[in-house]
Every structure is written in C-alpha cells, then in structure tokens.
C-alpha cells in the first residue's frame, strides 16, 4: 500500500453513512421489490453449459440437485433451475451436482 493516497475532502460521516446505508438497503431490497416472473426453469443457454441429451461419465440430470422431474412420468422431460428449456433426465451439463 505504498501508493500515494490522497485524502479527499471529507463528506460528513453522517451523510455518508446515510447515503451508503440507503444504497446498501436498495441492493438488499431490490430483489424483494423488482418483479420477476416465477422462474420455474433456468435461463442458461444450453450450449454455454455444454448440455447434452445423454449422460456423461455415468452422470445424468436425473441425479442432479438442480433437476426437477416432470409432473407425470410420461412427460419425458423435466426442467432445471439452471438450464433453459426442457431437460432430459438422461442429459448432462457442466453444472452437474449430485443431489
């Protein structure tokens, strides 16, 4: 930390605390206030996460913590908290995490 560090003209501590408190509060509250559609499925591009419809090294979506199986077994594909679109239970992507 040997760089020259110049002290800036002081804003009053109270004003600074108040201001920064407001910003931090805004950061914390933003997610509570901003409306986003209930994200049942993930938003990641399948290609970005190297998604494939077949297992990899014995790992598959059905065993992954982010996978949600279809409501009825006949539906075939489920959804994922990470990857967008229908997800094959036999599939795999680089986010794989054993449940």
């Amino acid at each position, binding site marked *: *930390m*040997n*760089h*020259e*560090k*110049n*002290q*800036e003209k*002081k*804003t009053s501590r109270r004003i*600074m*605390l108040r*201001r*920064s408190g407001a*910003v*931090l509060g805004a*950061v*914390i509250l*933003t*997610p*509570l206030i*901003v409306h*986003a559609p209930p*994200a049942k499925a*993930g*938003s*990641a*591009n*399948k*290609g*970005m*996460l*190297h998604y494939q419809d077949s297992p*990899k*090294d014995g790992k598959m979506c059905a065993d992954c*913590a*982010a996978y949600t199986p279809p409501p009825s077994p006949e539906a075939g594909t489920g959804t994922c*908290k*990470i990857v967008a679109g229908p997800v094959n239970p036999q599939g795999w992507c*680089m*986010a*794989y*995490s*054993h*449940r």
Partner: protein
Amino acid sequence: MNNIYTFLKRVAAIAWLIILAVWLIVLFGYISNANANPLFARQTSLKCSSCHTIYPELTPFGRKFKLGGYTLGEREKIPLAFMAIVSRNSISDNTDKSSGDKLFAKNRELVAEAASLFTGGKFTDYAGGFVQWTYNNISTTDNQRYVGHGALDNTDLRLVKMTGSEEKPTFFGLTLHNNPTVQDVWNTTPAWSFPYYSPTIAGPGRGVPTFLESGARVAGIGAYTYLFDSLYLEAASYQTAKGALSALRWGTPDAQRVTLSGSNPYLRATYTFGSDHQNFTVGASAARVTMAAPDATPQGDRFTDLGFDATYQFFSKDDHHIITAMASTIHEKADWRAGFLNGNNDNPSSNLRSTRAKLSYLYDRTYGITGAVFKLTGDADFARFATNNGKPDTSGYIVELNYWPHYVFNWDPQANVRFGLQYTGYTKFNGSKTNYDATLRDAKDNNTLYLYAWFMF
C-alpha cells in the same frame, strides 16, 4: 514464569482448536453432501463444489455463473449468507532485533479474525450481484493494538444478456465493482488469486503491490463479452468512489481511501480452450492509472500496469482428482510526476515486477495441497522503500494444506467449513536475504505458519 505462561497459552490455543473441531463434527453430522457457497448454492440448489475447486477458485461452471451475472437459478427471498474466519498465525521471529521489543501482539494466539455478510445473487434474469460487507476484528495501525472495523468489501453488480446459438453462445455484460480485478473469473488476477487467505496478524505480506494488486477501493465500471464460449474481452474505467458511487467505499477509513485523477482505463482479454475435463486459459491485462495530484503539484503519480497470465485445470472422469495451475506476472512502470518533485522518490520513474505461480491438487474435493512461489523485483528507490539496498525485492514460497469436510449441518445444508494450514517461507524480503533493514532481521525471520478455519453459512 514467562515460559509457563507461554506454554499454557499454547495449550489453551490447541484445546480451543480441538473443541472447535469436535463441535463441528458433532454439529454438522456425518452426512456426505456438502452444499457450500451459501447464497449462490441456495439459489441454484447446487453444491459449492459445482462452482469452486478450493473456494474462491472457480471451476469452468463457476466462471460462467459469474460471467452470467450471478443470475442462474431462482431468486432467494432473503438473499443473505455469512462467513467467519478463525485463525492463528505464528511468525518465525517476533522480535525487533535492535530493541528487543515484540513486533506483533497476538502472534501465536487464536483470533476471531473477520466476519462477512453477503447479499446479492439473482435480482432478475438479467441482473445480479455479489455484495460483501466485512467486519475485520483485528484492524490495526501499529501491530500492537487491534480494533474492530466494518466496511463494504468485494462488490460486483452486473447486468447481463446471453445471446447466440447453442453452438456459439455469448455473454454481454456490464459490471459496477469496487476493487480492480474483483470482476475477473480466472483466479490469476490479484483480487481472487492464490493465496486465497493469508495472515493478517504478523503477516509480512509479499512486498509492495502494483496498482492492480493494491486492492484499491475505487469505483470500476466495465463492459465485457464472452464470445463463442472462448474469448473474453473487457474494458473498464476506474475512478474515485465519490458522489453517487461513494457507497462503493462505504466504511473504508480515510487513510486507506484512494483518490484517482479522472477516469482510468483497464483492458483485459483471455482465451480459453479445452474440453470438459481440462482447459487452458491465456490472458493479458493492462491498466493506466493516475493518482489525484497532491497540493501544489501539477500532476499526480501515474502507474502503467501490464499483466500476462495462464491457467490450467484438470478434472478426472471419476471426479476424484482435480489439478489446477495458475501463473501470472504484472509489470508496473511508475511515473513519479508528483513523488519525484516532492522528494518521495529517487527518480522520475521506476519499474516493479510481480510474478506468482501455483499448483494445486484436490482429492475428492476434500483434501487439497497447493505449492506456490512469488517474486517481486523492482528498481532501487531509497526514498520509497526504507530498505538497506533501496530495493523492494521480496520472494518466497507457500505450501498450503486444505481440508474441506463434507458435513451437512441439519438446519442449514449450505453451511460448510474449510481448514487451511499455510506455510510461507521467504528467500528474500525488502531487498535482501539477510539484514534487510539494518536491524539484523533476515528474510527467513518472517516465515509464517498460519492455521485457519473458514466458515460459510
């Protein structure tokens, strides 16, 4: 009498560690399924090891989670997570050899070092953040008295758009952050590079930092793209965190505030290639930063940093073995446009070069060993460095052992802890191997053995 006291203190410290370990084992239970990085793990339902090898080091997916603006997963209702660090450091020689005085209080004592509160995560599908507030319990100016101090720590807010076909996916993003390179995802640039935690008490450090290594609390605004899943390009501007951006240095003590002159450019490019089992990255970074001019000086000092870095990661198919290697170097040319006039520097300009490399092996994502080397060299500047030969040269090595047990705490599956035992050996310190500051102190007197427990919940 003094010896008995020291002995009892050591016994007490060891007893505390044993009690802590037993407490953890009992409380966490023996369920093998560690979810970790708590806020993001809760948001994605993934384990922390999905994003991290040895946290905070990122896996290929972890890099993309961050490039994606922390937006993957479902938004948490109460996006909070906590971190606490308990540690004990021991420096080889804690005496000022010229006076016999003790250099550092609390050396060889177990201390509650710091605690952090995290918020952020996913805001919307296109906006997310990493916000850390840290209470440093051992803030000090004289290494004798320690006080607690809270301040905004690493912060990175992002807006991101994912585009492109499945074959050529691309991220475009904006970042607002408060520390140069805190936005980077490769663990080779200073903010998130090895050692991931190092001693605060009696911590000799690794020499004078270049600007990029200085952790300066400034306001950074950047735009980046990650093209076709391989090429990362970023342009950012650093300026004083004032006015509307003053919140970015909330709590930073006046003496640690950095005031820059205007807007200062930072450029970064990396290229990543490989497969899901191994990948390589090569990168470069550049920054030119001008400090605000001190009174009665027309211009402030200017630092021009140019960095190169490379990474390699290997993940075995059976998931038992992970190897990661990182190397980086930063060359800094400093123009002492104020310092030379004011007598703070010997010459109108000088050079500094900082090089680091590390190699880690992780077994079962539980047991880790890392070997690292670091080397700082620079031009002599007696006015700047109070060393015997005027040089800042500092070099050495680090060996760290890690244990990251896979316990699951019943009421909080994301809680986890990592233990680290880190030895730092110095071959050169402040310019010399021996008697570097005319008090007969040698580089090796600064060797440290550091033990820490890093809790996340």
